[in-house]
């Protein structure tokens, strides 16, 4: 019987099988940031342990960093302490770090692939749930907690139980204007935020193969919002072309050897999955979330739902609470919802292609007068530099956007970038939880082009009609 992509990569990383069915799984790449690592380094220190394999870990600060006036340092003393702790820990334990003054600094999930630190078939972990992003390379990529960060630092392994494997196939050509982000939101709307719990998801089918690496990363990034352990896409020429020539990717003869191995990283034709779901790309319309969970999502052509139509009491209460929090009335067309702020960035949509798509929408136009702030925050210093080389920053600035320095920024509002209570935001990030972008803030998740169009119009619009 054939093997699934997940099984192939898993099997290559089993150090030892335990009696209870768990395994000791070897970790090839460990990405580190300032928020979930200080207690792990402290744990190592207290136990007198050393990192098992230094070169496997690479760090960068992202969650807490300012996106303006960076030369003045970090104003918030608590944030500054945490970023300095990362610098100190990396220096003490000999771990490579792209610090605040390094052009390679950025959101850890943008920086990793960009540097070629994430390669096909690897096992990748990070103390961050959106590590699932890296499954776009046909790797097993999982978010872990701080205790496991310490475990990986100390042993280069994790104790893991093999999840079940689900294949989600999206058939047919990808309609114009539909991105990896729309596919992700659509699928979560269909299967729910717990739809993937206990599973590794392989995304497959014509529409997925048609995505760029950026699109695949946006999709896998949000696999965690469907509750999955990880999301994956098989390796193909698109993957190989992306990886080639990146700073940490293999070169010369080693690259050829690697490519031969990477070409095997797909599910065999006769592989059996624990669960299979199929969707049609033609059914996907640009998506906008309306509530406080990523599964509360609708096509831009839809209207805010009525709790009376919920499937049970728990859902009804959830919807009602979401409507109250979001300040929305059942039956309001999505396209009539006016916004106060716009955020384009994050590990979901902070890559060069995202800014190209957004810039195409705003070129020659002006941010609506009713919009208080529209910000474009590149995912890394290199994305920023590339966008500037292409003149995208000027397009954003001319339209009235702020063009910022790289970091997580208003995706989670740990720095100064945040919503005030009651403010409504079109955001390209991945979570619309209560308070996520600032206490009382109201988040609508959309693709970069949808966010850009909303900034210009002052409300959501169907970008398929955009002129």
């Amino acid at each position, binding site marked *: 019987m054939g093997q699934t992509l997940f099984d192939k990569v898993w099997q290559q990383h089993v*150090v*030892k099988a*335990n009696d*209870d069915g768990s395994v000791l799984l*070897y970790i*090839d790449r460990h990405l580190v940031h300032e*928020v*979930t690592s*200080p*207690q792990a380094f*402290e744990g190592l220190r207290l*136990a007198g*342990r050393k990192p*098992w*394999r230094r*070169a496997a870990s690479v760090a960068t600060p992202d*969650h807490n960093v300012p996106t303006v006036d960076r030369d003045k340092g970090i104003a*918030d003393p*608590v*944030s500054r*302490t*945490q970023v300095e702790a990362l610098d100190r820990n990396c220096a003490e334990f000999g771990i490579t770090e792209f610090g605040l003054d390094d052009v390679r600094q950025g959101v850890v999930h943008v920086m990793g692939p960009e540097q070629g630190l994430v*390669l096909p*078939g*690897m096992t990748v972990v990070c*103390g*961050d*749930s959106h590590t699932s992003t890296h499954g776009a390379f046909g790797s097993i990529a999982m*978010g*872990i*907690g701080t*205790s*496991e960060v*310490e*475990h990986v630092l*100390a*042993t*280069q*392994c994790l*104790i893991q139980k093999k999840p079940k494997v689900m294949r989600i196939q999206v058939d047919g050509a990808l309609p114009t204007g539909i991105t990896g982000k729309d596919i992700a939101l659509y699928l979560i709307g269909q299967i729910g*935020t*717990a739809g993937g*719990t206990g599973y590794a998801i392989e995304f497959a089918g014509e529409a997925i193969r048609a995505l760029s690496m950026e699109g695949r990363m946006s999709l896998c990034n949000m696999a965690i919002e469907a*509750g999955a*352990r990880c999301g994956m896409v098989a390796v193909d020429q698109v993957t190989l072309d992306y990886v080639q020539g990146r700073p940490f*990717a*293999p070169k010369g003869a*080693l690259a050829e*050897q*690697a490519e031969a*191995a990477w070409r095997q990283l797909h599910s065999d034709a006769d592989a059996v999955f624990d669960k299979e779901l199929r969707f049609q790309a033609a059914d996907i319309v640009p998506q906008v979330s309306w509530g406080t969970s990523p599964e509360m999502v609708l096509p831009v052509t839809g209207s805010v739902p009525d709790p009376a139509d919920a499937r049970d009491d*728990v*859902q009804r209460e*959830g919807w009602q609470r979401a409507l109250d929090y979001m300040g929305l009335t059942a039956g309001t067309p999505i396209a009539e919802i006016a916004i106060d702020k716009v955020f384009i960035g994050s590990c979901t949509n902070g890559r060069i292609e995202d800014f190209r798509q957004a810039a195409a929408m705003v070129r020659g136009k002006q941010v609506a007068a009713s919009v208080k702030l529209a910000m474009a925050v590149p995912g890394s210093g290199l994305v920023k530099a590339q966008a500037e080389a292409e003149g995208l920053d000027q397009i954003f600035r001319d339209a009235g956007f702020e063009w910022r320095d790289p970091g997580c920024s208003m995706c*989670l509002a*740990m720095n100064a970038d945040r919503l005030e209570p009651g403010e409504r935001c079109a955001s390209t990030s991945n979570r619309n*939880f*209560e*308070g996520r972008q600032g*206490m009382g803030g109201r988040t609508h998740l959309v693709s970069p082009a949808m966010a850009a169009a909303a900034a210009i119009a002052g409300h959501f619009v169907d970008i398929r009609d955009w002129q």
Partner: protein
Amino acid sequence: MQAFTTLDGIVAPMDRANVDTDAIIPKQFLKSIRRSGYGPFLFDEWRYEDRGEPEMDCSKRPKRADFVLNQPRYQGAQILLARENFGCGSSREHAPWAILDYGFSCVIAPSFADIFYNNCFKNGILPIVLDANTVDDLFRDCFAQEGYRLSVDLQAQTVTTPDGQILHFEVDAFRKHCLLNGLDDIALTLADADAIRAYEARRQQEAAWLF
């Protein structure tokens, strides 16, 4: 890590589905580089009227009277009763740290988000999965009876209700072992150091680009 063996405690009902880690401990508290001290900020935005900041003295902050943990009958609760997909969202271990620091060492729900579930075991918290109907019954009884308690026995894998009903739960053998004995699993893994080295040597032959 603190071991978990048995627990007999007051139950606090958190009657919402999809309670996420941002709700359990809002991001401003993630700036701390410590492992403790998060208890006063557990469910901060639901619990207090004002915006919490790290290092604040919470004893003087205005509380939301209708929030479950602010009600007198649930003071001293050690067991949190929750709805489906509890702990979804980020991987922040600050969420279980806050739950533990507050005084809970057991969470009962019909389902948990994966990373959160795993993080609980690393911190001496026992997450128990019971089927949705059973959890529904527990909610009903907990609301109905002031001072409602449950008794949990990890060795026997049972939850006993005040009327003597015994509910069985599943738990992975290895996790149970570690939790019962308060074991640090890094030490256990390092006992396999030779196997890890042998694996690395083999992989270096097969896939040199990884090293």
